[in-house]
């Protein structure tokens, strides 16, 4: 087999690289990691005009080739041909924001000097034109000595001439790299001169974004808008998902009943219906909610609002010793702490970064949603506090808020103890506002849904199956009247554990659910579903939902303590693994797990005692 030509996309952040990657590869893309580092590797396949396939790699967006961050090091090493797990590319597409030439051309010239046959994709020319810029691509091309193709990646404009030009590049041979001329400032000045020559006409920049910012960044309205947006997001997660979740739930119940009626009674039927289907089904019901949450976060990112949120939050974050930059990884952690912790790579200051990593798991990730949703639906009445504001949504909001407050307090404490030291502050580019393209949103959501379903099919399926086995062996004699759960291996472990957990209001079933939920939080739900499915063998209870069963066996203080536990508990193998990788050792992940479990225990205990004292 001959190896396919490898083409690399590079450029500054906010140049529209990912949009161009999507436009060139469509859905034929994969996301992985470079060996040994947590830099994501996006690779896709594209068709060249002559019918040959080629591989396209989307390198991390960086400002320079100086290896200051892991991202920059990977980009540099790939281009130098020394990155493990990647060949030296045969051609380079340098994506440049047409509206930002002065700044992007410095990096572009540094890239061209590396000797790989290169071209410039002069991206977002439509916005630049609307912004009052008239450019001369031919002049730019002759000044830089490489082809320049105007593109609008989000609208797939310019893709055909771009592909023709790639074909031309693949016919060329790489030249040896040239040393960079002059120091950084000199190169920057030369780039500004190049930009000036390529701009035919220019009017003052960016009226629209500035007008929006006058409202969005307003000292009074800005924070109100941010709070309102977050509130709507969390209300929507609950309200909009219900019909879809009900449909999935109906489907799962139907499959389970079909299996239960067709298979002969016995251990195999129990394994499939009560173990596998009940367990996995209990988790995939939450796919709609997770997708709605991700949709909100993706839209906020794609529009450019996320960076504004960082601006608004910087002052507050500075108060606890962090920067506004930490807000983006933390908000991403609402979807999942793993990409959130990986996003901390954009924080240059090592202590800022470590603090952000350590508090990221306190942000309520989507894996907690299944847990919260089941308990809230079962124990909190679906009444309205005010028109349009449901009590259930309010409780969910309070749980999210609890995580945020906990994180701020933890950051403050960490900054004064283990991560003491002066920070580098807050400096960041605020890109123009953009209307998100539905296609890119759909692609992003599809990738997230796929990851979630894969987890449901692997980690969650395996842990529920193990739990099922632990719950079913050794078998009891049905005539003896001893409950199967009490008699099982898992029951014995849980009985031991509940000695520690009883003071904070956790019963045996909860202790039992917490064991497999060490792998992933949402497993707690499937574990409870499996436990109750095995214990309740009579047919009428089989049709009850998990919520109804919980309501029958838990007190309200116990349910509230369970919720409080999950605000803090670091139960996620993937998060612990990513912290180990990002901090290069076991010291920080162990520290994190320790302090979070202590917090979880205290929070659950305090909630239980308070709720009991109040007579709830």
């Amino acid at each position: 087999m001959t190896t396919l030509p490898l083409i690399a996309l590079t450029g500054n952040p906010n140049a529209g690289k990912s949009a161009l990657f999507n436009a060139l590869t469509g859905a034929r893309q994969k996301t992985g990691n470079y060996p040994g580092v947590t830099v994501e590797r996006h690779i896709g396949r594209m068709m060249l005009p002559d019918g040959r396939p080629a591989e396209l790699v989307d390198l991390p967006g960086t400002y320079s080739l100086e290896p200051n961050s892991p991202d920059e090091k990977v980009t540099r090493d790939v281009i130098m041909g020394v990155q493990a797990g990647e060949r030296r590319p045969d051609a380079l597409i340098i994506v440049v924001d047409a509206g930002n030439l002065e700044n992007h051309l410095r990096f572009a010239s540094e890239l061209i000097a590396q000797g790989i046959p290169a071209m410039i994709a002069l991206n977002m020319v439509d916005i630049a034109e609307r912004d009052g810029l008239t450019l001369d691509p031919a002049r730019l091309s002759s000044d830089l000595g490489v082809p320049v193709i105007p593109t609008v990646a989000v609208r797939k404009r310019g893709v055909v001439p771009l592909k023709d030009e790639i074909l031309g590049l693949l016919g060329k041979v790489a030249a040896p790299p040239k040393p960079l001329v002059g120091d950084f400032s000199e190169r920057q000045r030369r780039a500004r001169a190049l930009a000036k020559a390529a701009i035919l006409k220019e009017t003052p920049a960016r009226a629209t974004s500035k007008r929006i910012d006058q409202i969005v960044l307003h000292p009074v309205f800005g924070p109100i808008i941010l709070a309102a947006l977050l509130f709507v997001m969390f209300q929507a997660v609950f309200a909009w998902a219900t019909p879809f979740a009900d449909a999935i739930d109906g489907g799962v119940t139907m499959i389970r009943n079909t299996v239960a009626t067709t298979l002969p009674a016995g251990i195999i039927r129990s394994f499939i219906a009560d173990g596998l289907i009940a367990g996995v089904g209990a988790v995939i019901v939450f796919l709609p909610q997770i997708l709605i949450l991700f949709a909100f976060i993706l839209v906020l990112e794609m529009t450019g609002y996320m960076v504004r949120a960082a601006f608004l939050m910087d002052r507050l974050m500075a108060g606890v010793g962090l920067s506004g930059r930490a807000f983006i990884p933390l908000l991403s952690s609402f979807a999942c702490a793993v990409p959130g912790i990986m996003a901390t790579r954009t924080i240059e200051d090592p202590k800022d970064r470590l603090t952000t990593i350590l508090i990221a798991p306190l942000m309520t990730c989507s894996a907690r949603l299944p847990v919260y949703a089941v308990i809230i639906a079962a124990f909190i009445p679906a009444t309205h506090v005010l028109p349009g504001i449901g009590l259930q949504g309010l409780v969910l909001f309070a749980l999210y808020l609890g995580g945020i407050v906990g994180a701020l307090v933890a950051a403050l404490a960490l900054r004064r103890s283990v991560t003491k030291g002066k920070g580098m502050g807050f400096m960041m580019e605020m890109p123009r506002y953009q209307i998100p393209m539905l296609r890119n949103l759909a692609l992003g959501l599809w990738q997230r849904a796929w990851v979630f379903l894969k987890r449901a099919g692997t980690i969650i399926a395996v842990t529920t199956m193990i739990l099922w086995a632990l719950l079913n062996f050794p078998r009891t004699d049905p005539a003896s009247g001893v409950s199967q759960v009490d008699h099982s291996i898992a029951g014995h472990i849980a009985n031991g554990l509940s000695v520690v957990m009883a003071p904070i209001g956790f019963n045996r079933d909860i202790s039992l659910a917490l064991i497999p939920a060490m792998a992933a939080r949402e497993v707690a739900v499937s574990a409870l579903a499996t436990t109750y499915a095995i214990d309740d063998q009579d047919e009428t209870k089989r049709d009850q939902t998990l919520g109804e069963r919980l309501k029958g066996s838990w007190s309200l203080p116990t349910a509230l303590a369970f919720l409080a536990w999950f605000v803090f508990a670091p139960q996620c193998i993937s998060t612990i693994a990513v912290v180990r990788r990002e901090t290069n050792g076991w010291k920080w992940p162990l520290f994190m797990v320790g302090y979070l479990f202590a917090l979880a225990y205290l929070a659950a205990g305090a909630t239980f005692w308070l709720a009991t004292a109040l007579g709830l």
Partner: protein
Amino acid sequence: MRLDQLPLNQPATITHIDWDGFESGAAQRLRMLGFDEGIAVEALHRGGLIAHDPIACRIGRMTIAIRRIHASLIDVATR
């Protein structure tokens, strides 16, 4: 005048940057974001009611947010 004292929407030019006043790495980052002597700058937005921190300013055609403490290391002259 220093950048943190520059009134909003008042076009100005950077006359001097106290590069050595920045924490390690911060000066390099400021340069990458396009800050340099002789560059046109304009303060666009300020965060917070009381602290007026951070400041969003226009550098070339980009909008960059920086903190007041860093803006106070940048001298500007109004145009």
